[in-house]
């Protein structure tokens, strides 16, 4: 009964949010998340079950929030990098470095958790700055420049942990990935805090404009007096910070630092999250909240597979198909062609009805006719 009521409340709130986003780019990302949740509501038993234990909420949706924190954090840094027309492949490795540094300081060097955390984050920022120097200073292609750290970073992390898996029990460190605040996982607070920080950095200053401008037309930005190098350096550094935080969350989750596995392939999830969030890999316009929702979407997808007992060997396949579909539906021209195709079959397109589409085509600036 309570479940039934809370579900209804959830859908009403979700519907309102979706409605308020109509005409915006992230409508499609949030809509895709909604469809996925709707699927789970009906076909995945127990997915929507939620319970309060010791003042903490538990349930699949809460798991999604908690487990998704890493990708959401990474995608915040990644979206800015991608907006400048680059990509940061090293975030997974930087996560491993941050985990290695913090647990080594904590366990081997017997430092307090505060020191471990601050140093780990500082090292991550340095790692990001290194990428920034390679890309902005030396003009190396981003994919190559960050590939260096992607490959070498895990080696560095291994050196720091001396090839060991370091386990820890320090309450402060454990809290990061497992603690609760206001009945919700602490990681959610962390994500919201970083989102607010990123939002302030790019939308309250002119940095966001510069990032979009550099990503859209590097040469013209230079002619306009924008310091493109500085902009690029900053986004890679910020991506390093985000990766460091994600690394702390990851090792805190499992209470140990495993240099080989922490953050493995997460850079790919982060890139996907950014793309699902509506930002083009070509750079230019970016969507911060879209990237975070994209991260949430990918985690929901992963958790759905898990909850439905899809073997982890084959789960990437349906995951890939869903992501392709979401990306296609974000494209204006595909939606037009799709609705044309659907109409030619004699029915209105089901998943993304013609209602919001109509709205979109009148509201989105991309659609307005040439003057």
């Amino acid at each position, binding site marked *: 009964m309570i479940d039934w009521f809370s579900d209804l409340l959830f859908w009403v709130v979700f519907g309102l949010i979706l409605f308020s986003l109509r005409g915006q780019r992230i409508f499609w990302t949030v809509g895709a998340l909604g469809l996925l949740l709707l699927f789970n509501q009906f076909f995945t038993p127990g997915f929507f079950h939620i319970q309060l234990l010791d003042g903490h909420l538990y349930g699949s949706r809460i798991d999604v929030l908690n487990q998704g924190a890493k990708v959401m954090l990474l995608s915040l840094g990644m979206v800015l990098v991608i907006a400048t027309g680059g990509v940061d492949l090293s975030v997974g490795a930087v996560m491993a470095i941050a985990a290695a540094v913090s647990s080594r300081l904590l366990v081997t060097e017997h430092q307090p958790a505060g020191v471990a955390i601050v140093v780990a984050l500082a090292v991550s920022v340095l790692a990001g700055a290194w990428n920034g120097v390679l890309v902005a200073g030396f003009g190396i292609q981003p994919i190559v420049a960050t590939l260096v750290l992607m490959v070498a970073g895990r080696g560095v992390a291994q050196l720091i942990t001396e090839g060991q898996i370091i386990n820890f029990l320090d309450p402060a460190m454990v809290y990061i990935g497992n603690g609760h605040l206001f009945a919700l996982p602490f990681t959610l607070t962390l994500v919201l805090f970083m989102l607010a920080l990123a939002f302030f950095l790019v939308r*309250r*200053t*002119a*940095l966001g*404009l*510069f990032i*979009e*401008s550099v990503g*859209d*037309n590097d*040469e*013209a*930005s*230079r*002619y*306009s*007096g*924008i*310091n493109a190098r500085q902009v690029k350096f900053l986004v890679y550094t910020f991506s390093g910070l985000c990766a460091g935080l994600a690394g702390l969350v990851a090792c805190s989750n499992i209470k140990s630092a495993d240099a080989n596995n922490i953050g493995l392939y997460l850079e790919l999830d982060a890139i996907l999250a950014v793309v699902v969030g509506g930002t083009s890999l070509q750079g*230019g*316009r970016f969507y911060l909240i879209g990237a975070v929702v994209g991260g949430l979407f990918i985690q929901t997808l992963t958790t759905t597979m898990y909850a439905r007992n899809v073997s982890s060997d084959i789960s990437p396949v349906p995951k890939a198909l869903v992501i392709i579909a979401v990306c296609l539906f974000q494209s204006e021209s595909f939606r037009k062609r799709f609705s044309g195709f659907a109409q030619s079959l004699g029915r209105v397109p089901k998943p993304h009805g013609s209602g919001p589409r109509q709205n979109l085509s009148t509201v989105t*600036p*991309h659609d*307005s*006719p*040439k*003057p």
Partner: protein
Amino acid sequence: MATPLLEITALTKGFPGVTALDAVDFVLHRGEIHALMGENGAGKSTLIKVLTGVFPRDGGETRLEGQIIVPRSPREAEALGISTVYQEVNLIPHLSVAENICLGRQPTWLGAIRWRAIARRARVALARLDLTLDVNRQLSSYSIAVQQLVAIARALDVSAKLLILDEPTSSLDKTEVEELFKKLRKLREGGLGIIFITHFLDQVYEISDSITVLRNGCRVGCFATRDLPRIKLVSHMIGKAVQQVEALERKRASADSIRSEAPLLEARGLGRKGALQPLDLEIRPGEVVGLAGLLGSGRTETARLLFGVDRPDQGTVRVNHKAVRFNSPRTAIRYRIALTPEDRKVAGIIPNLSVRENIVLALQASRGSWRRLPVTEQEKLADQFIQALGIKTPSREQVMRNLSGGNQQKVLLARWLATEPKLFILDEPTRGIDVGAKAEVEKLIQSLRQEGLAVLFISSELEEVVRQSQRVVVLRDRRKVDELTEGEISEEAIMQSIATHNLERPVT
């Protein structure tokens, strides 16, 4: 006379909205170097592209040695004996010389490449140009000039009857050009027909036997080079009869607005190797200085040096008597210099951002990222310029790429006006925009001048330069050849300066 090597009759080619070629005739004989001349958009490239099968033709016929040919691709044209060498070396720098020469027609044996045959063939091809290179070395290890020759060797490797050279000299220095010309003369003696496209008048007179001039897609005429004085050639290219030029109505602005004799910007011996011979230039507040010259004469290069896009390797620049050195546009902007670039798409517009963002960009950049203009201020600024310049856009949030060329240009002007510049460099501000917008831009320039701005005005249209400027600096072949002051400025005088062989005022 024997059948000409190439005979094109009434060739017509249209693109949506434009007639690129309108019944153009062209005749080339064996052993002739024929220059194809015309300003930008005259139809030179289109003619070449139709001839080599890049574009299909709409009408007309082409005869090669009397046979009608209709090549459908450059490859087919090549098989027929028509080879082309483009302006930018069109080879692959990381492959060897031999691979570059034989690429796409490599001799094979049972599907396997015969490397030794390739090397042999490459050496033979180079020998035709009296070149001996290590054919196994990577192409990029040779100078651009040698690469250009390799490209020609490649073009001649297929039994070419006709060689088309599209601005082959634009990246070569003087001695390299002479070397190239020596080889071309030798090829001419061998009976090859050569079509030569260039913007350098001196080179045309040095090497070509005849000249065909195109203008706006039409053939103006075909002339023997020795019978066509330079001034005539220039007047044919830009479409103004020499005698009429003087009689042209001149609605020029007077110099009354020049506020002071002290120059705002003063360049002495400013130059950069390969881009611009050292030149002197002064611009005073309230003055429009025109920069005239044909394409490739160094106009844009001058603008880039003054704005810090390229770094000069000699000379000094003073702004308000203070010696300055611009390492990037950022530094130039700090001295209140603004530039709208020649190529709007590449260096001007930010296509996916809104009109508002495009307008505030330079101002915001000069304020840095921390001192962000509040959105209401941005909107005010954008609305103000949209109104003042008559930018036609449904709203200030419209994305830039949806605007027409003229309106994009106005947005770029607004972007710089928002920074309140003291010197405004306008590189081809009216190119590719319609007549109405053109008149508005011209009017704007004059009102800026009256407000005391210094303007450097670059344009291919002499008429415009004459109308706008109080002083005109004439460039040719990357050097300043003349400076015309108030009273001397006329289209004829500019044409005369461009065409004159000997420098009136030697510039060191």
